[in-house]
């Protein structure tokens, strides 16, 4: 399979994420969109690693090169940690304001 399919899918996912973040007001949905963007990038990383790394470095056996795949695991772990913190913030937000609308959160202004 060619790399361009993977790139296309990743761009589509990423753009979905951006549009979601920009247009939605529900903070949980925004949060999910951010995760979408993150995983679009992860997908791209894995695809590039699989398809390109070996030839770029001039190594015959592609299975030897797996550093980017491992890198993705790290990103997932960090993302999981971030999600737990982010969700906790959203829960606290809801408890305080009885709402998860981000436009409601411009109280610090002025």
């Amino acid at each position: 399979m060619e790399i361009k399919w993977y790139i296309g899918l990743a761009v589509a996912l990423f753009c979905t994420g951006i549009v979601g973040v920009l247009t939605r007001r529900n903070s949980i949905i925004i949060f999910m969109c951010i995760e979408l963007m993150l995983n679009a990038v992860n997908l791209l990383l894995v695809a590039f690693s699989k398809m390109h790394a070996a030839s770029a470095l001039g190594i015959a056996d592609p299975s030897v090169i797996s550093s980017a795949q491992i890198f993705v695991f790290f990103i997932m772990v960090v993302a999981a940690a971030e999600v737990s913190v982010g969700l906790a913030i959203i829960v606290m937000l809801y408890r305080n304001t009885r709402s998860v609308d981000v436009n409601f959160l411009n109280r610090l202004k002025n």
Partner: protein
Amino acid sequence: MRNVLELVWLIPVLPLLGFLINGLGRKQVSKTMAGIIGSGTVFGSFVISLLVFFSVKEGNTQVAHYFDFINIAALKIGFDFQIDQLSSIFLLIITGVGFLIHVYSTAYMHDEEPKDFAKYFAYLNLFVFSMLLLVLGANYVIMFIGWEGVGLCSYLLIGFWFKNTNYNIAAKKAFIMNRIGDLGFLLAVFWLIAKVGSVDFHHVFDVVGNPKTNPLTTFDITGITLLLFVGAMGKSAQIPLYTWLPDAMAGPTPVSALIHAATMVTAGIYMIARSNILYTMAPVSQGVVAIVGLATAILAATIALKQNDIKKVLAYSTVSQLGYMFLALGVGAYTGAVFHVMTHAFFKALLFLGAGSVIHAMSGEQDIRNMGGLKKYMSVTHITFLLACLAIAGMPPFSGFFSKDEILAAAYNNSPLLWGVGVAGAIMTAFYMFRLYAMTFLGKFRGTTEQEHHLLESPKAITIPLIILAILSVIGGWIGIPEIFMHGGHRLEAFLAPVFAQSNALTEKHHLSHTTEYMLMGISVGAALIALVYAWNRFSKYQKTEKEETGLGKVLENKWYVDELYDSIIVKPVLSVAKYFSNVFEKKGIDGFVNGVGKAVNYGSRQIRLLQSGQVGTYVLMMVIGILVFFIIQLFL
């Protein structure tokens, strides 16, 4: 005795040490200690100076190199000391008279607070140190360090009682006038560096004095000597920069004695005597020096005729005597100038210290109209003061006679007109000095009865320096007895001959015939004697009058209105320009700019603040736009 010259560095270092101890520890040292340290260090320098003098007398001269002061490319300026006949004479004058003034000060300044007392001695020591550096320096740059040092110290000491605004103004005046002169000195040094490539006395004089190697044109040499003379004008109080010296009377009286006799004002004379070869080769400059000197001598003498402040009379007499010294330098009588510096140091220090003793006894009164009849209260002061007056009036056989006579004879050699004006000055000198003497010591006491009760002879620390200086004022001239009285009597000339050898080789000496010389002497002494007797008779019967001076007398009393003239043509315009800058340029221009920057930042931030709306969506949108812009720049541009 050669090894004595190794100790030369101690001569300036001792007073510097005294300055550091008294200056840094002024809160710890007691008055007695401060006095002992202050006088002791100068005395130490005096002893070494004496040893050095005798060593030089045996023919040991040298330039001692200590370290490189400036070393850039081809220009090498060493921290060198020059030990020769001229500097050893000045060393003796500075440390000797300086020491006596220090001793005198211990009594005179006794009413000061301990820390002010120590500060005073610290300044005095620094003053002596600077002057020694000036005299010892073997090149113009080291000389300039001392030159600036004495300027600074005079400022500090004139403004010693800095709580009085007038004294501060006088101190500032001295400093600024000196700075004007210093600029001339500096320019001359730069000119020398540019043309000769060196500032070492030996090198410069050897190169310039030899017609084969002389790199200077007549224009260069005239320019350099005139600029150096501008420096001397400031330091040695010549027209037009003399007005600071009479104002310098604001300082304590021993300081006046130090400035007027041993240090500071003799710096200009020393510098020109040191550069004698340059002046001999620039006849135009010599003419300027002689005429400025003579004009100063006359102008200051006329002013002194009508002054009523005891110190002011002495101050103008110093300016006048300095004029004579410059006259001597201008007509090429370098020995005469140095001789007069020396005798003047003795009798002028004595006059000032005597005046200080009188002021001390009169509890601060300085107006001679309120004195009179002090003869019977203060015998030592009276007799020493009289001797000094006779010396300055040029009466034989007192010291002033020999030095002044030598200058006048040299002036006559140059042009009888110079001599005539010089004699007129000498007559006025005799007149105003004896007016001062008669009004102070003769007649009836004119002060208040309370002052009369306090009239007492001053303590030993004051009278002993007076006596020593009086002896020197009497016999000091005997080292320069003219040829007509005694063959080989002019020992000073023989001693200084090596220093002025180059100049003497260039000028042919034509001696006056003996009859002319006797006649000249007779006329000047006779005329001065008549003025003396007239002043004695007239002012010993002086009565206080309320009558205002009119006509010329009023002009003289107001010092020819020179101060007012300077005030209106220089000080006022400068002040008004300064006022413009402070009121308009500073407030509108600089403040406007500074405040404008502040206001612009304030306004700008108030506008940019609106971007921070608090809407998370807007932020993300901006971020995305930013990333897109970044991509576009990276990929397509």
